């Protein structure tokens, strides 16, 4: 597959780069101290942090991956939004943000230090820092690979150019620069993909035409006719749907553990809300994000569904074939762009795609330089230096982080397995985190030892479960089952990787939850009630926003968001 960009498309791309760099340059003079660089001086209005909150997550995995899942699993992919992300974002806004923002912690690991102890912070900070540079490297690799594949651009040149652009704008304007560019990218994605979805949907005969053409896709794989267009109707049994999960694994594994874990504890997204100008703005950040977020399935999942319907109804197929002969789902978006958009709009759609890769990288880099500087450098390596020194370190960490990311991008291009392995290990580390935060914020008796060993135990639990479970058709190894093989036991069978993954998260969460409670009860509380004020629910004065107009009250907004989400679930049941 090959796309030919015209001069006008290149002009659009170059103008975008100029704006991105220009914003960084404009912000340079505001960067006076480390708080400006890492926290945006806590001065940003809620609509800006809200849109940045979505965009930071709208990287490669989201745009390309969600479209791929839309093709592979159909509308069930929307559970990632309507069961996962949205409820989690409401929970973060209403219940958790008061502690993050109110504690004046500068990062998520720093909150863990204030609430628990040094070792819990260290564990979280180090694993998070490693994870972010690797993710940014993977993002860079995916971008360069895509550009090489569809435009014939030089792989090395793509890596260098995208790295330099991101480096320059973060170096100049820190977190503010990243946030502002994320907002720019948000509008690029919305305005670039809307005409694409409109044209593709019109071509296939609207929603009813799509529904009809997706019937053979489902029946061809031995599923009930409506499987690709009904999100809940085929969740009764693991064998009834292509995801291989039933409703309990979906709601608890994906919704409760994985999504709440990601949206409520990952510093990459939480950092955006922490940059808001006051408590109310911080709490409204995830809620403002939730409104466009719940409509995003139309922009990222629907194209995948349309593409697979086309693929099965066009002689010779629509999507290019992958290595094993099945359609290459990751090419969904580029294929649609090339098929429907004429030169001009193609430049907009293509720039939107590049922007999403770059802001995914930038989000990781800003989270990395903050955690590195505050939680690792200032805490363990060089405490009590001047603020100016830490600002300098932040810029240095930005350069170093990007250089390491480039290294990771090349590592990914050489050894695909190393990357899979790393992502697996990160999965083990992340899965139990939400249990620690839940107990930390809502149970004053939870202790430092409890949190630390609970986290370790949860990670170990995830690894053991992974070693014991194996999805149908996989061989023991990186996909699971390695422990069972060693012990000469038959592995716990799963229909596919996704179901296995959801249950792994559930096991990790439960292990961490139970261990933290047991160890906390057996150890002495290391913090006084005074120290825990503002960090734990029962010891924190309630925040009232009664004097704000209704559309600025987090609770009211949260209820509206949840009501619309329930409605969407029912419409597409």
């Amino acid at each position, binding site marked *: 597959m090959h796309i030919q960009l015209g001069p*006008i498309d290149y*002009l*659009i791309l170059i*103008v*975008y780069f100029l*704006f991105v760099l*220009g*914003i960084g340059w*404009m*912000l340079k003079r*505001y960067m006076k101290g480390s708080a400006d660089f890492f926290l*945006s*001086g806590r*001065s*940003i209005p809620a609509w*800006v942090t809200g849109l940045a909150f979505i965009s930071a997550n709208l990287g490669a995995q989201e745009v390309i991956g969600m479209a791929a899942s839309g093709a592979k699993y159909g509308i069930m992919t929307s559970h990632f939004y309507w069961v996962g992300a949205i409820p989690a974002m409401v929970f973060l806004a209403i219940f958790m943000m008061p502690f993050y923002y109110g504690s004046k912690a500068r990062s998520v690991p720093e909150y863990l230090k204030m609430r628990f102890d040094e070792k819990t912070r260290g564990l979280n900070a180090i694993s998070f820092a490693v994870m972010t540079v690797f993710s940014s490297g993977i993002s860079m690799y995916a971008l360069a690979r895509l550009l090489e594949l569809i435009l014939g651009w030089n792989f090395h040149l793509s890596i260098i150019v995208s790295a330099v652009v991101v480096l320059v704008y973060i170096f100049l304007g820190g977190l*503010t620069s990243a946030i*502002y560019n994320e*907002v*720019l990218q948000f*509008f690029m994605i919305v*305005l670039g993909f809307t*005409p694409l979805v409109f*044209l593709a949907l*019109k*071509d296939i005969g609207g929603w009813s035409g799509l529904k009809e053409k997706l019937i053979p896709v489902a029946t061809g794989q031995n599923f009930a006719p409506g499987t690709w267009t009904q999100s809940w109707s085929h969740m009764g049994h693991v064998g009834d749907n292509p995801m291989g999960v039933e409703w309990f694994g979906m709601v608890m594994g994906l919704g409760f553990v994985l999504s709440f874990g990601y949206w409520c504890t990952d510093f990459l997204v939480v950092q955006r809300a922490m940059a808001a100008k006051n408590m109310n703005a911080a709490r409204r950040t995830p809620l403002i994000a939730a409104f466009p977020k719940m409509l995003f399935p139309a922009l990222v999942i629907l194209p995948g569904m349309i593409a697979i319907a086309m693929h099965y109804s066009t002689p010779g197929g629509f999507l290019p074939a992958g290595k094993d002969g099945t359609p290459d789902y990751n090419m969904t978006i580029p294929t649609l762009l090339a*098929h*429907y*958009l*004429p*030169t*001009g*709009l193609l430049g*907009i759609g293509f720039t939107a795609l590049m922007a999403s890769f770059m802001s995914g990288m930038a989000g990781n880099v800003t989270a990395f330089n903050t955690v590195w500087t505050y939680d690792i450098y200032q805490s363990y390596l060089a405490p009590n230096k001047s603020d100016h020194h830490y600002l300098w370190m932040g810029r240095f960490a930005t350069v170093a982080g990007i250089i390491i990311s480039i290294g990771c991008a090349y590592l990914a291009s050489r050894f695909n397995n190393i990357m899979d392995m790393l992502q697996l290990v990160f999965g083990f580390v992340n899965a139990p985190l939400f249990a620690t935060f839940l107990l930390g914020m809502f149970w004053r008796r939870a202790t430092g030892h409890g949190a630390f060993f609970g986290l370790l135990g949860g990670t170990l639990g995830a690894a053991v479960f992974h070693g014991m479970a194996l999805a149908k058709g996989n061989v023991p190894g990186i996909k699971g089952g390695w422990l069972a093989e060693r012990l000469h036991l038959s592995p716990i069978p799963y229909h596919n990787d996704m179901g296995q993954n959801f249950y792994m998260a559930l096991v990790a969460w439960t292990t961490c939850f139970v261990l933290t409670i047991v160890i906390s009860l057996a150890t002495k509380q290391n913090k006084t009630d005074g120290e825990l004020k503002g960090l734990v629910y029962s010891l924190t004065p309630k925040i009232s926003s009664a004097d704000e107009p209704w559309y600025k009250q987090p609770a009211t907004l949260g209820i509206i968001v949840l009501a619309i989400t329930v409605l969407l679930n029912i419409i597409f049941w």
Partner: protein
Amino acid sequence: MNFDLRLPIGLMFSFYGALLTIYGLVGDKAQYERSLGININLVWGIVMLAFGVFMLTLALKSKNKGS
């Protein structure tokens, strides 16, 4: 922070909108076969231009109020 983000957003999309509108008017029409016969550059160019101008208006309005 004395920097209104609506200004660059407005400028950028006004530029893109104007560019696509003009290109839609004067450019090669044969290429719209792929966009189902719709001159999507013209249509969407006008939409983006309207969005850009709207953002610019908001930014300039609050600037005048502030000074």
